[in-house]
C-alpha cells in the first residue's frame, strides 16, 4: 500500500505548478467550471475559448498537451499516475486546459479513416481545432441510443434530417451520431460521422441552422442544431456503417479518474477561507469563528478528501490495467452532488453576494473570483450532463452490485 505518487508524477506536479503560476493569470473568464461555467453572452464565451486556446498552445510547446497519447501519434504514453498528478495540479491551479484531444482523438486513433487521422490528429495535438459534438437530441437524452436523426444514403452522400441539442455547434467540424438503419435494434442502426458544419468562409453548410439556448439567467450555454437535407460525404464515416454506437464508446486507456473535480473544490474551499479571513481583518464579523460555519467547511473538506480517494482508486485501477466501471460512476455521481452542495453552500454563506451575477461591472467585485457565486446556480447542470446521477446509480447497482434490471 502506498498513497504517495511516484517520483516521476511528483516531478511533473511540481513543474506544472510552477509553470501555471508563471504563465497563467485568469483575466476574468470562468474557464474551468465545466458544466457549471459562467460564459455570459456568446461573444464572451468565444473570447474565453480563445484565451483557453492560447494557454493550451503553451502546453503544446511544453510537450504536455498530448503526453497521454500513444507514441504512434506523437504522444509519450505517459503513465496513468503522471497524467493524474498533472491533471490534479492543473485543476488546483485553475488552469484553463491540461490534456488535449478530448473524446474525439481516441476514437479517431482507433476507428478513423487514414485521411481523418492525417487531417485532424495533428491539429488536435497542436490545439488548433475543436469539434462540436452531436449526440443528444430532444427525445434522446439518457436514452441516447434512441436517437432519431436520420441519415439516408444518396449516391456518395448521406442526406441528413433531424435535430441535435445540448452542444455548442460553433466549430467548423462536428462528430455526430445518426440513424442509418431504423429497422435494426436501436444500438445497431447508428452510424458515427465526422462532418463539416461550416464551409471555408465560416458559413454554415446548406441545410444547417443553429439557435442559441440561454440558461435561466441568460448565460449562453447551449445551442440547438437543425439539419434539413444536409449532405455529408459518405467517406465521413468513423468506423463502419451501423457500428457507430460502439465506435463512439471507445475511450482508450487514458486517465479518467476525474481528479480535477476534488482538486478544484479543494482550491475553492481554500480561496473561500481566505476571502472570509480577509473580511474579518477589515473588521466585519469573524465568520470563520462560528461553529456551524467551521463544521460545514470541515465537512466539505472531508467529502472532498473522500472524493479524492475515489478518484485515486480509479487511477490506480487503470494503472493496473483494469477497466473501472462502477468505480467511475461513483466518482461522477458523488462528485457532481458534492460540487453542487459546496458551491450552493458557499453562495449561501456569502449572503447577498452569493446571488450577484458576474455582470455588474468593477464596482461590484464578487467574492473569491468574479464567477464563483454564480457556480452555485450554474452547478444544476453537473448532475445531468455526461450521464445523469440516476444513470450513474443504475450502473453502480446493476453492473457493480449485480442487481436485476
Amino acid at each position, binding site marked *: *500500500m*502506498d*498513497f*504517495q*505518487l*511516484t517520483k516521476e*508524477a511528483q516531478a511533473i506536479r511540481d513543474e506544472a505548478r510552477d509553470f501555471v503560476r508563471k504563465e497563467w493569470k485568469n483575466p476574468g473568464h470562468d474557464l474551468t467550471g465545466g458544466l457549471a461555467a459562467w460564459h455570459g453572452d456568446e461573444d464572451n464565451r468565444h473570447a474565453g475559448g480563445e484565451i483557453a486556446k492560447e494557454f493550451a498552445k503553451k502546453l503544446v510547446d511544453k510537450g504536455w498537451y498530448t503526453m497521454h497519447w500513444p507514441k504512434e501519434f506523437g504522444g509519450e504514453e505517459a503513465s496513468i*499516475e503522471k497524467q493524474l498528478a498533472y491533471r490534479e495540479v492543473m485543476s488546483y491551479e485553475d488552469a484553463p486546459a491540461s490534456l488535449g484531444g478530448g473524446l474525439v482523438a481516441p476514437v479517431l486513433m482507433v476507428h478513423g479513416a487514414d485521411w481523418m487521422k492525417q487531417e485532424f490528429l495533428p491539429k488536435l495535438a497542436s490545439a488548433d481545432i475543436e469539434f462540436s459534438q452531436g449526440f443528444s437530441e430532444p427525445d434522446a437524452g439518457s436514452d441516447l441510443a434512441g436517437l432519431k436523426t436520420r441519415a439516408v444514403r444518396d449516391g456518395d452522400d448521406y442526406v441528413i434530417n433531424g435535430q441535435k441539442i445540448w452542444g455548442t455547434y460553433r466549430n467548423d467540424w462536428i462528430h455526430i451520431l445518426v440513424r442509418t438503419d431504423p429497422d435494426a435494434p436501436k444500438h445497431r442502426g447508428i452510424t458515427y460521422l465526422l462532418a463539416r458544419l461550416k464551409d471555408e468562409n465560416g458559413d454554415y453548410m446548406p441545410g444547417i441552422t443553429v439557435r442559441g439556448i440561454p440558461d435561466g439567467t441568460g448565460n449562453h450555454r447551449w445551442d440547438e442544431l437543425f439539419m434539413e437535407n444536409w449532405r455529408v460525404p459518405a467517406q465521413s464515416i468513423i468506423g463502419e456503417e451501423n457500428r457507430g454506437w460502439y465506435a463512439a464508446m471507445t475511450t482508450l486507456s487514458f486517465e479518467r479518474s476525474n481528479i480535477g473535480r476534488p482538486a478544484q473544490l479543494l482550491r475553492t*474551499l*481554500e480561496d473561500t*477561507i481566505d476571502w472570509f479571513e480577509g473580511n474579518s481583518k477589515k473588521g466585519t464579523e469573524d465568520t*470563520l469563528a462560528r461553529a456551524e460555519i*467551521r*463544521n460545514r*467547511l*470541515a*465537512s466539505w*473538506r*472531508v*467529502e472532498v*478528501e*473522500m*472524493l479524492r*480517494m*475515489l478518484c*485515486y*482508486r480509479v*487511477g*490506480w485501477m487503470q*494503472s*493496473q490495467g483494469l477497466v473501472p466501471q*462502477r*468505480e467511475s*460512476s*461513483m466518482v461522477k*455521481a*458523488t462528485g457532481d452532488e458534492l460540487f453542487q452542495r459546496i458551491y450552493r453552500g458557499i453562495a449561501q454563506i456569502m449572503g447577498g453576494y452569493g446571488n450577484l451575477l458576474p455582470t455588474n461591472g468593477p464596482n461590484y467585485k464578487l467574492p473569491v473570483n468574479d464567477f464563483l457565486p454564480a457556480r452555485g446556480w450554474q452547478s444544476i447542470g453537473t448532475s445531468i450532463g455526461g450521464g445523469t446521477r*440516476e444513470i*450513474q*446509480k*443504475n450502473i*453502480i*447497482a*446493476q453492473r*457493480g*452490485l*449485480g*442487481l*436485476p*434490471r
Partner: protein
Amino acid sequence: MDLGLTEDQEMLRSMAREFIEQEAPRTYVRDMEEDDRGITTDLWQKIAQVGWLGLIVPEEHGGTGQSLVDLGILMEEVGHGVLPGPFFNTALVTVGILDSGTDAQKAEYLPKIANGDIIASQAIMEPYSRLDAGGINLEAKKQGENYVLNGSKLFVENAHVSDLLLVPVRTSKAGKNAEKGITLLLVDTNSDGIKVDKLKTIATDNQCEVTFKNVKVPAANVLGEANNGWDTLKLLLQKGASLRCCQMVGALQEVLDMTVEYVKNRVQFGRPIGSFQAIQHYCANMATDVDGSRFITYQGLWRLGEELPSDLEVSAAKAWVSDSAQRVAATAHQCHGAIGFTQEHDLQLFTRRLKAWEVSFGDGDYHRERVAQAMAI
C-alpha cells in the same frame, strides 16, 4: 501509488476471515452477547496461537513484527465478523507500548500480550465523555516511587476481563494549558483499590466504569514522559480512531453485502425488490459510502504507519466513516423491512456496534473540528 494489498496481506485477510467463520461464527457472537466475560478463554488462546496478538510485536518480543496497515487489514476482518472480545483494545495498548514504551516495558508486556497471557485495554475517557486534554482529570499524586490514583474512568471497553490498563492521568493541575500535566500509566488491574462495573449498552460491547481508590502504581509504569503525556496520548487516539475505522469498514462491507443479497431474493409484487430503482439507488449510495470509507481510512492509517503528517487525513476518515456508517446502517434497515429490526436477523448485530463505534475515538463533529484546525480555519 498502490492502493492494493500485497500477496501476504491478501493471505492475512483470507485466513482471518476463515478463522472467524470457523471459530467465532454468528452463533458464537450471539452467545457472547449473553456471556459475562464476552469471550471464551479458549477463543482468546486460539487468537494468540494464530499470531494475531503478536502481529505487530517485534520478533525479539515474540511476535512477527508486521506493520500498522497489516493490523488495519486484520481489524477490518474483525469488524466484518463482529468478533467478540478485547482484541481491538489489546491491540491498541500494544501499539501504545510499541510507540512509547521503554525497553524494559516492552520486554515485560509484549511477550505476554503476544502469547495471550494478558488482556489489555485503554482507559481514557472519564465522566462527561470528553476526548480533549481537559477531559483527563483522574488524579495521580506522586508519593515516593509510586503514583496514587483517585477518581474514575468511564466507557472502558472490556476492563472487566483486562489484566492491564493504559490510563492517562493528571499528575499536575490543569492550568491554562490542559495539555500539560498529563501522564500515561500502565496499571495492573489486580492492584488494590480498583473496582470495575460493567455497563449495559446498546452494542453489548462491555463498556465499564473503573473506579480508582488510592491505587498505587509504580513510577516505572509511566508510559512515555511523565507530565508530558499529551502528545503520546494524541497519537494513540489517532491510531485508535484509524483502527476503529478499519473495523467499521469491515462491518460496513458486510452490511452492504447482506443487503444486496436480501434485495436480490426478496420478492414483492412478483419481482425482486432489488429490481426497483428506489432500492437500487439506495444500494448504490451504500456502496459508494463503503468504498469511500475504505480508501479514506487506509490513506490515514498508511500515513500514520509512515509517520507522515496525518492530522487532517485521520480525522477526515473518522468523520466520514462515523457518519456514513449511520447512513449505511439506516439504509440497510430500510431495505430489509421489518425483519432486519428483529433479534433473529443478523443485521442488528452490526447496526448496534456501528452505533457504538460512531462515537468511539471521536464522532463526526469532534473530528470535523479537528479537520477545521488542520485546515488552519
